[in-house]
């Protein structure tokens, strides 16, 4: 362990980048950019004008969320006209950010992951969608070009995301 640490510390600045890439640590994680407040999330959603956004609200403890996650990963890989954003709500119950980051690394999740840093859901749940009771999973499909949006509060089945996207096109 010690010799590994000395090796890392002896790396030249340029090699640090290579080292981080080799470690497979996404840049956002090393800089804590994945942590996001609600107003930042809302702004990020508003600013995306070029793609239809599929925003999935999930948590590592939520079994149906993990079951449907491959659907979002597949969508992220296949559809270049769609921007998939996975918003973790883990921090509402557990302050351990690393648990989420480690999960994302372990599961090799390629979609964009954000970790919402908010408490007291009563103050923000309806800002995502008025109809949302707070149950997970939930998914928002939104097209800023025409203002169309769909919100679904349940686990999705194969093919449903494509239908939702078609409905906001």
């Amino acid at each position, binding site marked *: 362990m010690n010799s590994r640490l000395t090796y890392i510390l002896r790396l030249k600045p340029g090699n640090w980048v290579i080292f981080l890439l080799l470690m497979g640590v996404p840049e956002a994680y090393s800089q804590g950019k994945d942590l996001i407040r609600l107003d930042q999330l809302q702004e990020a959603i508003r600013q995306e004008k070029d793609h239809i956004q599929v925003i999935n609200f999930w*948590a590592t*403890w*939520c*079994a*149906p969320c993990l079951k449907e996650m491959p659907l979002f990963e597949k969508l992220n890989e296949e559809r270049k006209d769609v921007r998939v954003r996975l918003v973790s*709500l883990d*921090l*509402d*119950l*557990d*302050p351990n950010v690393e648990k989420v980051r480690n999960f994302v690394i372990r599961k090799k999740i390629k979609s964009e992951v954000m970790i919402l840093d908010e*408490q*007291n*859901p*009563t*103050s923000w*749940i*309806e800002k995502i969608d008025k*109809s*949302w*009771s*707070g*149950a*997970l*999973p939930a998914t928002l499909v939104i097209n800023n070009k025409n203002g169309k949006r769909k919100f679904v*509060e*349940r*686990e999705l*089945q194969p093919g449903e995301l494509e239908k939702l996207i078609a409905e906001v096109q």
Partner: protein
Amino acid sequence: MMKRLIVGLLMCVSLSAAAPVKSGYELGDIVADFRLKNVDGKMISLSDFKDAKGIMVIFDCNTCPYSKAYNSRIIDLNNKYVTKGFPVITINPNDPGQSSGDSFEHMVSLAKEKGYSFPYLVDETQDVTRAFGATNTPHVFLLQRNGNQLKLVYIGAIDDNARDAAAIKRKYVEEAVDALLLNKPVPVLRTKALGCSIKWKTA
């Protein structure tokens, strides 16, 4: 047992998850009585609580991490208010076919382990859950006596901080019950909490 499990699993795979139409009681509605099996095997109805000034009906389960986080807070709610005329009734809405850890046997074990002094009922048909419009666990519905009827006066969360009981700023349910005990209006009528979705039967 094994056969039932396999049939259950097949049903899960072959049928897409049923999406129950969102409905249920609204604030001010009179709640219909129900009859559900308690962990001690006895049937329990709202009308059994003739002397209660109101009832805290909480949809809850064994497996949800939010239910686990709130377990001791629910026990505390009953301990604090049962003698003041506001008992707790918990109801497990989850289909054990989808969530085996929420089976009746597991409910009995949890109630025993935690020393529940209040009912922990199973809603096998999920009809009561649908009637209330419960969506996640734990989900609170506070009822107030109105003659021989019970009126819904609060829907939502127990408090405003799931992860840290020491950091709670608003104890929504306690504030509501305290207000009712003083014949005052409930300060916050409706709140929302994150939680586990109810595991509906797929058939």
